[in-house]
C-alpha cells in the first residue's frame, strides 16, 4: 500500500530513500507522477515529497549565475525577471510545459526525471550547459543535465538519489539562448520536435561559442556538436543556416508516431533549429 512522507532535510530524504523497503518515488510538482499513479503506470510503495526541504522551490543568484531549486514551479521561473534576462531560452522552455494550472506545480527536476524524449525544458537546459546537483547515500555530485536521462522513462539516478538543484552558469557579454518547439496546435501539446540553441557573439556579430540541442527526435534530448560547429566562426548567414539545418537533420534518430513520421520530424528538426538559432542571435545582439 502506498505511503507518503515529506522530510524537512536533504539528509532525512536520502536516509528514507536508501532504507525504503519497496519502490519509492520522489515527488516534486507531481504533474507527471500523479497522472502515472492514477493510470497505474507506476505503483510505488512510498512517495517522498521533497518540497518541505528548504531551498527546493526558489531561485537564487550566485557568482553571476543562477541556482534553481529542483521543485521550483514553472510559474515562479517565469516570474524571475533576472533569470529571464540572462537565460530567456531556459525560461521560455520551462514555461511551455502544460497549461497555466500545470505551470503552478511543474518543475525542472520533474521534467528531467520523467525522462520523456519530448520534455521541453531539457534541450534548453543542456544548451545552457546547466548542471544539476544529485544527492544520495554516496554523497553529492554535480553532473551535466544531459547525463541524467538514459532513455524514455529512464534516468541514471540510483534509487537513493534525487536532484536538489540546477546551476546555470554566468554569461559572457553578447550571449543568449532560445528554445522553440513544433506542435500542431498552439498550446497544450507535446513537442513533435524541440530545439534549444545558445550562442555567444563577438562585437562584430561573429559566433564564438554555440550549443545546439534537439528534443523529441531520439530516445533522449541530443547535443549536436556538428550543428554548433556550423555556427561557430560565422555570422548567421545563409551558409551557416544551411550547414546548421543539415547537421541537425543528420543527428536525428526519431520514431514514427501519431505526432509525426521519421521523415517529417527530421525535416522539421532542421527548420526549428534554424529558427531557434535566429532568435538566439537576435537576443545576443541586444545584450551588449
Amino acid at each position: 500500500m502506498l505511503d507518503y512522507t515529506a522530510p524537512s532535510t536533504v539528509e532525512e530524504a536520502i536516509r528514507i530513500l536508501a532504507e525504503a523497503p519497496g519502490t519509492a518515488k520522489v515527488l516534486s510538482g507531481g504533474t507527471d507522477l500523479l497522472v502515472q499513479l492514477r493510470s497505474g503506470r507506476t505503483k510505488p510503495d512510498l512517495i517522498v515529497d521533497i518540497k518541505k526541504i528548504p531551498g527546493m522551490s526558489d531561485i537564487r543568484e550566485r557568482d553571476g549565475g543562477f541556482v534553481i531549486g529542483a521543485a521550483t514551479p514553472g510559474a515562479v521561473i517565469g516570474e524571475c525577471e533576472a533569470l529571464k534576462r540572462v537565460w530567456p531560452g531556459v525560461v521560455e522552455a520551462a514555461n511551455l510545459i502544460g497549461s497555466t494550472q500545470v505551470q503552478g506545480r511543474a518543475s525542472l527536476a520533474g521534467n528531467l526525471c520523467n525522462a520523456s524524449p519530448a520534455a521541453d525544458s531539457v534541450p534548453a537546459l543542456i544548451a545552457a550547459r546547466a548542471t544539476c546537483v544529485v544527492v544520495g547515500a554516496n554523497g553529492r555530485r554535480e553532473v551535466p543535465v544531459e547525463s541524467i536521462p538514459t532513455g524514455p522513462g529512464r534516468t541514471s539516478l540510483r534509487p537513493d538519489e534525487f536532484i536538489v538543484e540546477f546551476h546555470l552558469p554566468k554569461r559572457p557579454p553578447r550571449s543568449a539562448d532560445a528554445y522553440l518547439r513544433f506542435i500542431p496546435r498552439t498550446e497544450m501539446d507535446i513537442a513533435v520536435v524541440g530545439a534549444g540553441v545558445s550562442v555567444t557573439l563577438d562585437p562584430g556579430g561573429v559566433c564564438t561559442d554555440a550549443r545546439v540541442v534537439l528534443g523529441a527526435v531520439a530516445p533522449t534530448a541530443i547535443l549536436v556538436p556538428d550543428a554548433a560547429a556550423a555556427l561557430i566562426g560565422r555570422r548567421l548567414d545563409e551558409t551557416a543556416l544551411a550547414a546548421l539545418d543539415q547537421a541537425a537533420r543528420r543527428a536525428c534518430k526519431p520514431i514514427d508516431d501519431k505526432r509525426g513520421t521519421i521523415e517529417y520530424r527530421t525535416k522539421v528538426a532542421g527548420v526549428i533549429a534554424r529558427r531557434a538559432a535566429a532568435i538566439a542571435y537576435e537576443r545576443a545582439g541586444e545584450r551588449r
Partner: protein
Amino acid sequence: MSKHHVSTTINGAPTEFLCEPQLTLLDVLRDELHLTGSKEGCSSGDCGACSVMVDGRLVCSCLMLAVEAEGHAIETIEGMARGHDLHPLQRKFLEHAALQCGFCTPGVLIAAKALLERNPNPTETEARYWFAGNLCRCTGYDKIIRAVLDAAAELRGD
C-alpha cells in the same frame, strides 16, 4: 493503511482532515469536505474543471495529493461569492450567458480570477492563452472571453 492528518486553510477557514495518501486534493474537497463545486473532468490535468488556488497560485486539484495541502491556503469556487453577492466575474458570466452545462464553469471562474489578480487588463490573446488549460465542451469560449474581459473592465472601473 495509516491516514494522514492534514491542517490547511480553505477559503479562509482553518480546516483539518484525515486522508489516505493516494487521494488527490480534489478527492478530499469533494468526498470528504463536500465542497463539490470543483469538478472532476479528466483527472490528468488537461481540462481544468478542478482548478483551485493554492497559496495564490492556480493549480489542478487533481494533480496534487491531499497530503500536500498541509500548511497551505486553498481557495475554491465556494469562496468566490460573498453570501448572496456574486463576484463580478460570476455576474458577468450570467449576463453574457458564458456557460451552458456549467461543468467547466467553476474551474474557468477560478482561473479567470487568478488571471485578473495578475493582469487586470489582459488582451484577448493573453486571456485565451491563459485559459488553454480550461476545456469547455459546450464550445462557449467566445462568450467566456467576453465575460472575463467585461468583468476586468468593471473591476478596473472603466
